[in-house]
């Protein structure tokens, strides 16, 4: 009975015009279960097609993560807006539908995929968005039903209205480096931030000049795959950022971990003016001019590692 009441109130809350943008950014499996059959709810399964084919939440549609990402040398690059628009239309999404992004849920890094798709949908102008906390792993652990049905979804004619307030370009980042009223947030593990290691897509280790480090993993309950609650996120944000600034830009290697930081700061902690630099360091380090960075290796160690590379 209690479950039915929760479900009913959630359905009412998400479908009434007054609650246009008030869907919770994170849903637990127990909260999603009763909604999954509602016609205005669209569950988007971003796992690989094989995983989806094996078993998925009843009513979910498949849109593997790769479709939302860029080419191999810059995965963080957004695909053409027309391509994304077609994808969104095929998924039957529009301003009325409530999109719920579902990933594998195996760890904190995997959450970044769901957060990235959430961010992409928000960038395209959709606002009724949620992520399933803990992904399919938590759904399965809760013993909730799955099937292999391929739901027929009517294509929408949604035309994207780009929400540029949540996107930062290379030029935006460059102009904010020396601005004390701006914060550049490196979402990567500390070893990357300190320049001790680098991703294959970046040409050099290090971080963007004047950036601070908030590892994406701080937003997760220790030992679990679940992201913290709104209240907990606010507390973490207040501790890391005691002062408010005008502009916060999250970045990482390819705009994956950065999506988690963006999601936690913007959607959970409710901080204003948080953006993400989607191409991140894969683009920044490969610019034709050397853009400002910190924690990069000196010329000597760069030469040494080139010489060492000869013998590998």
């Amino acid at each position: 009975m209690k479950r039915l009441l929760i479900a009913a109130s959630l359905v009412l809350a998400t479908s009434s015009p007054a609650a246009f943008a008030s869907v919770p950014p994170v849903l637990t499996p127990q909260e999603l279960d009763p909604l999954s059959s509602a016609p205005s709810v669209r569950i988007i399964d971003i796992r690989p097609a094989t995983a989806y084919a094996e078993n998925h939440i009843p009513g979910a549609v498949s849109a593997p993560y790769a479709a939302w990402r860029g080419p191999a040398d810059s995965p963080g690059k957004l695909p053409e807006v027309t391509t994304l628009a077609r994808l969104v239309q095929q998924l039957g999404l529009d301003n009325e539908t409530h999109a719920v992004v579902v990933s594998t849920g195996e760890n904190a890094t995997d959450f970044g995929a769901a957060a990235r798709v959430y961010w992409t949908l928000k960038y395209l102008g959709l606002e009724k968005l949620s992520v399933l906390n803990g992904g399919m792993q938590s759904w399965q652990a809760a013993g909730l039903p799955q099937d292999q049905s391929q739901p027929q979804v009517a294509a929408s004619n949604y035309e994207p209205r780009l929400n540029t307030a949540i996107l930062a370009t290379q030029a935006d980042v460059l102009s904010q480096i020396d601005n004390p009223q701006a914060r550049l947030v490196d979402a990567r593990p500390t070893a990357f931030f300190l320049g001790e290691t680098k991703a294959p897509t970046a040409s050099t280790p290090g971080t963007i000049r004047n950036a601070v480090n908030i590892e994406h993993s701080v937003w997760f309950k220790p030992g679990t795959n679940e992201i913290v609650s709104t209240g907990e996120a606010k507390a973490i944000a207040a501790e890391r950022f005691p002062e408010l600034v005008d502009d916060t830009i999250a970045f990482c290697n390819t705009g994956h971990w950065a999506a988690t930081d963006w999601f936690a700061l913007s959607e959970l902690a409710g901080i204003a003016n948080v953006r993400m630099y989607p191409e991140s360091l894969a683009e920044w380090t490969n610019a034709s001019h050397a853009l400002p960075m910190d924690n990069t290796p000196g010329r000597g160690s760069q030469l040494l590692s080139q010489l060492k590379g000869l013998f590998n």
Partner: protein
Amino acid sequence: MSRLPLSLTIALGILALAWFVSLRQSVLFLVGLGMGGILAGARFGFTTGWRRLIEQRDASGVMAQIGLLAVAAAFSMPLLALFPNDLMAALGPPSISLLVGAFVFGAAMQIADGCGSGTLYKAGLGIPLNMAILPMFMLGSFLGSAHLDRWLSLGATPPIGLVNEVGPMNAFGLTLIGLAVVGALALAWSRRGGSGEAPRWLDRRLLIAGAGLALLAVLNLLIAGQPWGVVYGFGLWGAKIATAAGVFDPGANAFWSQPGNWSALTQTVFLDVTTITNLGILAGALWISARKAPGSTSLTAKQWAIGLLAGFLLGYSSRLAFGCNVGAMVSGISTGSLHGWIWVAMAFCGSLIGVRLRRHFSF
């Protein structure tokens, strides 16, 4: 001049290149130093070798050049097939400009007493005419590049690369046959008007020097990804100077507005491959001259004028011909480009005239 300060300066140059430019360029500079050392140390003159065959029936220089080509091809062709995306051959288009350019180059090089590599190593040795020719070479090469599209419109076919067409083994086989034919022709020429004496055709020092140069040319290909070249660097220097002087607009020029050439204009010449090997040859020859200074012959004013004009023509014609003896002959033939063979045939005809002109002007 004592060698130690020079050696230290060169060593400093190598380190400075590695630190401020790139490791690759510093190693290419080393390769150039080796080339300059061999060219100057063995006095390996392509021009002189041809002249000796023509005038004195001495085939030793030409045979050493044939040996160089065989060794270079033996390594370069399989490497090109092994690394098709990383390495490129010296593929120039057979064209009217190639015919004209190679012929003029063959003639001019005899008058200037130096081809591409010859001008460099002789300038490094400190021979005044060749030092003065370098700026003329630069001017000619730049103007040739600026005019290249007009020359090409007279008629050109796409380049023909033997390694792509018939595979590395067949390409090498064909190259060896071609070299054997040229060698037989050279030997036959050297035996004409027989004086009973066996003509010279084997000079051990030159053969070893040729093999050494070939190996360095292969290293150039492996490290830079492109074959040894001389002329491009000079054209680049000329283009940079002309652009800075405001007399040239690279954006409006067919050659220099191409992306690769355009970016070469904006970045330092130290990042250009042919510039670095040219500088290496100059420095290597300079180092040799510290112990083994060349003799000097003084020239009349008229000879100076003719020599400088020949230097200008060297630069201009080699750009038209898609390379000098290095870029077209050595690199073209050893990487299987048909244009290299056409270059040799035309340049030799030009040299026949050039040798006569040289005598006429009493060089």
